[in-house]
């Protein structure tokens, strides 16, 4: 088992009342899974993803990632954990505008201990694998949306994570570009990478092996 959530709840206070964003989530993921989280707007999909990605806190419950109890870890420890095992793909790509494709790809490696030559070869591998060698010195604004997301995926993969978290990865893309990204995900999954994606689209959902439906912060 890669990770497990037990009775996880998250709430905010609004007008003196507790408003639950997530309530009593019980949920586990095995290595090699390809999970789609579905649900209408405001059902808590992204919140759940962020909690899994350790970018966000929760108020109650337990979260175990590779035998580590995330809820009781120190911030620094937690950062080390997700740095090592998790890669993120965002809907709005979130590439840094002032950096070239190559430099964007290199960034996650900077926060780990890699030598310069290692970084160079890893970046070169990734450029090769995604067929974007020719674009390595361009800035994000010089690329199409699909190409930007390709770089986004490449960046998520460069540190060879066990788990990829994708928040509506195709939300800003046209259907053809979307399909390409989903094909890549499928391929990655076949190579052994666990994937959790948040999506609205039935079509994307079909790529996954398991579906979790959220409604008002609860798993249906």
């Amino acid at each position, binding site marked *: 088992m890669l990770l497990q959530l037990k009775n996880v709840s998250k709430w905010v206070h609004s007008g003196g009342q507790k408003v639950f964003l997530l309530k009593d989530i019980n949920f586990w993921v095995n290595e090699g899974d390809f999970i789609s989280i579905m649900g209408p707007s405001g059902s808590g999909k992204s919140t759940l993803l*962020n909690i899994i*990605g350790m*970018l*966000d806190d929760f108020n109650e419950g337990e979260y175990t990632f590779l035998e580590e109890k995330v809820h009781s870890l120190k911030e*620094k420890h937690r*950062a*080390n954990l*997700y*740095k090592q095992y998790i890669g*993120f793909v*965002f809907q709005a790509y*979130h*590439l*840094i*505008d*002032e*950096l070239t494709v190559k*430099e964007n790809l*290199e*960034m*996650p490696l*900077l*926060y*780990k201990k890699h030598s310069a030559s290692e970084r160079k070869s890893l970046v070169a591998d990734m450029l090769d694998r995604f067929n974007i060698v020719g674009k390595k010195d361009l800035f994000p604004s010089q690329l199409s949306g699909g190409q930007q997301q390709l770089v986004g995926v490449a*960046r998520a993969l460069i540190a060879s994570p066990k788990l990829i978290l994708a928040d509506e990865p195709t939300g800003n893309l046209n259907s053809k570009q979307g399909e390409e990204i989903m094909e890549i995900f499928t391929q990655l999954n076949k190579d052994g990478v666990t994937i959790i994606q948040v999506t609205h689209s039935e079509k994307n959902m079909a790529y996954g092996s398991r579906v979790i439906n959220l409604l008002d912060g609860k798993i249906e």
Partner: protein
Amino acid sequence: MLRHNLILFLRNIKKYKSTFLINIIGLSSGLACVFLIALWVLDEVQVDRFHENDEYLYQVWNKFESQEGPRVLNWTPSILAETMADKLPEVKYAVSQTIPAQFAKVPLHVNNKVIKTDGVFAGKDYFNIFSYHLIEGDKDQVLEGMNSIVISESLANQLFGSLNGVVGKVIEWDAMGMLEKHQVSGVFKDIPANSTTQFDFILPLATYKKGIIHNGGKNDWVNNNPITYILLNEETNVEEFAAKIENFSKLQDEDVTADLIMTKYSSNYLYGNFENGQQVSGRMNYVYLFSCIALFILIIACINFMNLSTSNASRRLKEIGVKRALGSKRTTLITQYFGESVMTAFISLLLALLIVFLFIPQFNIITGKVLSLSFDPLIFGLFLLIALFTGILAGSYPALHLSRFKPVTILRGQLKNSWGEIWVRKGLVIFQFSLSIILIIAVLLVSQQVVYVQSKNLGMDKDNVVYFKQEGHLRQNAEAFLKELKEVPNVVNAAMTSQNIIGTNINTTGGLVWTGNEEERRSRFKELRIGHDFIETMDMKLKEGRSFSRQFLADSAAIVFNETAIKMMGIKNPIGKTVRYGSTQYSIIGILNDFHFQSFREVVRPMFFRLNNNRSNLEFVVRIAGGTEKETLAKLKDSYAKFNPGYVFEYNFLDTDFQAQYAAEQRVASLSKYFAGLAILISCLGLFGLARYMTERRRKEISIRKVLGQSASQITMMLSMEFTKLVLIAIGIAVPVAYLLGSNWLSGFAYRIPLKGWYFIGAGCMALFVALLTVGSQAIGAANKNPVNGLKEE
């Protein structure tokens, strides 16, 4: 990682050139100002500290009790120094020295060459006390004997062309009624600029005693003339010693009324004022004031920098969010931001040094100093430290604040600003503008007062009057020369006087006795001894009676008062009445309308004129017809050459002396102009930063307003109004403060301009105008953006 951050820093500069430029301009002008002040302060605190014996070098002062409380005077008995050295074991050396002003512009002759320069008379141990380096001569011997003279290196070069064989050569000098020949016994290195005592030659005090104060006898302890300096032994307890010498003079002679106090020589410059016989502040106040201003400017510049960085950081939020999501530690981000601001500070440092380099000549003119940007490791170390400190201070807010947020919050664009934060920003702008407005008002006030002082009717005519010294051969044929002067075409009138009429040097006396005042004798008068026609030459107006005249031989026992004096004495129908001065009865022949002989800071003091005897005539004054200065002065020069061969005709305009009294005010006027300019610049940068930040923050609101149909001009108005409010608040704060400060400053003048409303209104309007100009561009820019862009990003 470093390379990455450097790349990000540089690419951000490239992308947001204007922001970077504004940051750099703000920081570097602030830094430049701080550096200039730092140079000034460093120079100021080092004045007179170069003497090796600084720690044990003291000046001894006379302290008199008077009606207005204790008065401390630098004049001391001329035998005080030698007696102290003799009788007090704690005193290693003691010397008397005349003040340089007393013996200024003395003509020195070598063959046919005449050079006029300042000198002092000093006791024989002078070079044992002060560290003026002797190039030639022995410090124990150079001031021995009656006929030696020690000259500065540059004077030696001017007089003899080189330093070779200068010792033993003869110099003739001519001053204060003496004409003497002295032999060069030594040469000293020119006195450094940071010494308060400046002179080019030293004569033995013995000569002074013999020729001018006629020593020997009872008056030695009562007459006060030179300054006294002492050098204490190293183990002396200074406080005990000070208590011990308090009544030293009194013990030597029963007629002495003065106590002795002592101050450290090097402290006299910064703590030059005395209160109740105690040394209190002085220039040190300015040192503190300017240090505070420097700190203020630095902090304001830093806060502006912070403000701009923070508002720009919203553009870089994504970068921060992504970095955090990819596993960057908070400390890494903090280092990155500090690194960037320190780098910016160092770029500003370079620019600031350039500005300092360019402005230093101007700054020297204003401050009257000789500062330079030398590569002194201490100064550069200090500058580096200031820049580092600035960088860290300026970077602290963005570094600590922005890195605090959770990556999700940032990536979702949910960064909220507390209202407190916005009020801090607004408060800052209000503060900066208040300061600018106060400075603008200060500039207006000071310049108006200076104009007023220069144009007010003095009660005499200071324009077109030249004066020069009676020296050399003129002393023998003064009357004949005066007659010749009056014949020169375009010379309106000419006369002799004992002293310059302008300024504070006019003698004060208290020995006047009149009916109803036989006992008291305490009233003090200004006294000037003048020649015939002086009153006419100066164009002073008679209120009653007549002026001195050659037709009345008895005028040698006549006296002329000014109006204030008569009022103070309370004499009715004064003409023809007599007053006693010394042993002579003087009859009052005329009353003059009051005229200003001192600066406008002083009220007109009681004053009287007597005719002088020939010995006390020391200056000629000549009024020439306006507009004919050039040719008339040429003719005066010819006459002078005829009567006084071998001397250079050196004259001054009375007008110039008059202006010199306001040198400090003029300095303040020009300095405050620069400060006001800088304050406005920095305030505008602050306002610009705020305007940009606010429009950035309200982008969505502006977009929605536009979509709902508000026009661009309406939005521009709305945004501008918001900042206008801030400036109006600033005006509300600044005006009362400026009013208080202004009236306080003006109260230092006995004659002053009224505080008019338009100074305040004008300054406020100016600030408002500049503010609108700054904000307007931002507002128009924001109002004309495509609303779709503003909404899409949400």
